């Protein structure tokens, strides 16, 4: 939707509108409802939920489950054809990646990595739908004022996943190494001394360094995905401000480049999850 003179929204309004989630939450005056504009959404604080992000993310997650469930039902040792082959190739690729990077033994890591790879890919893929198609359709026929169709451009979604991975890292870290081993990993590295007093002084320094390293893992994991997709989406929105006849000259190259980005980001998220969980499984 390019800016039209007169009754259309200005460029700033257009961009802001496209970057606002459909947030449902508790207004400051006490009643629950849809936030109109970024300001109202900010006032709701934590007690609010982005309906669009949740809708698309769960829809795409269910799509992933359905597709792979059907593939799993039909799986046999015969020659796979077409669609079945695609699913099995993805599973095989994930399995190979795990074999290369994960040296522990875990029943969770495979399904986890597969879910991450395919689900994030599907959510990223929504970025290639022209930015106005779904929001316009929903506004026209559903009366829904805000709509962001790419869940991974919502920091809540990416951080929700990276914090889940973080929780798993802590869980497996403690489970494999024991509470003592886990704490030792946080406090006895990278500086250590045989002298007990020196060691006591070094513990806070180690702890500070290690905790920063630990916290930075889920943060970088979630924000990397968010940042890449948010930036990509923003570029598409900016391109959409051009006169409609010229948009294809920029949006087509950017979309082609973005095909690489969406696959790469899904892969990076999966790969780092595997690596982090491998670190949690490794004994020192």
């Amino acid at each position, binding site marked *: 939707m390019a800016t039209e003179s007169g009754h259309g929204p200005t460029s700033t309004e257009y961009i802001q509108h496209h970057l606002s989630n459909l947030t449902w939450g508790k207004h400051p005056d006490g009643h629950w409802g849809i936030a109109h504009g970024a300001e109202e959404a900010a006032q709701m604080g934590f007690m609010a939920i982005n309906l669009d992000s949740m809708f698309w993310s769960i829809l795409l997650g269910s799509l992933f489950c359905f597709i792979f469930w059907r593939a799993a039902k039909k*799986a046999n*040792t015969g020659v796979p054809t077409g669609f079945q082959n695609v699913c*099995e190739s993805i599973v095989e690729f994930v*399995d190979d990646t795990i074999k290369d990077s994960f040296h522990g033994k875990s029943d*969770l890591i495979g399904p986890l990595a597969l879910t991450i790879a395919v689900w994030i890919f599907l959510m990223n893929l929504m970025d290639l739908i022209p930015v106005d198609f779904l929001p316009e359709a929903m506004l026209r026929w559903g009366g829904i004022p805000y709509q962001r169709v790419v869940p991974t451009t919502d*920091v*809540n979604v990416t951080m*929700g*996943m990276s914090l889940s991975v973080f929780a798993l890292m802590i869980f497996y870290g403690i489970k494999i190494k024991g509470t003592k081993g886990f704490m030792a990993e946080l406090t006895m590295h990278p500086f250590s001394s045989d002298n007990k007093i020196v060691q006591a002084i070094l513990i806070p320094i180690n702890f500070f360094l290690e905790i920063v390293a630990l916290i930075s893992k889920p943060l970088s994991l979630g924000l990397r995905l968010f940042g890449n997709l948010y930036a990509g989406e923003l570029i598409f929105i900016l391109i959409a401000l051009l006169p409609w006849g010229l948009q294809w000259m920029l949006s087509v190259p950017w979309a082609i480049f973005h095909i690489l980005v969406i696959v790469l980001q899904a892969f990076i998220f999966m790969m780092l999850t595997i690596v982090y969980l491998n670190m949690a499984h490794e004994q020192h």
Partner: protein
Amino acid sequence: MNINLTLIGQAISFAMFVAFCMKFVWPPLIGALRERQATIAEGLASAEKGAQAQEAAEEEAKQLITDAKTQASEIVSQAQRRSNEIVEEAKQTAVTESDKVKASAQAALDQEVVSTREALRGEVSSVAVTAAEKILKREVDANAHASVLDDLIAKI
């Protein structure tokens, strides 16, 4: 850009999808993949085995052919030798036979010569007697002069 309940909602749905995947998707798919891998490996191994067996069979066939050739050439050379022997034998026999024939012919000839000489002797003696009779114009006693005549005949 607000952090809100979506974070938790996403974490919950993430957990649910992973659980679903863990229960219904991953095990059957990966099981089928592993099984197929095993089947393929088996097939490849048996193909390899088949190729090896074929190679061995070819080797054996080659060996058999070589053996047969050697045997055949042996048989041929034996036959040749035998035929040479037979020819030699035949020659030998022929030579012996011809010698025998020659010897008997010689003997017959000798016999003939002897008898002819004998006859000739008789003839000569009678001719000599007749000649002597004619010369002497008188009857000579053949018996009285036999020793003279015999000497004469021996000198012929």
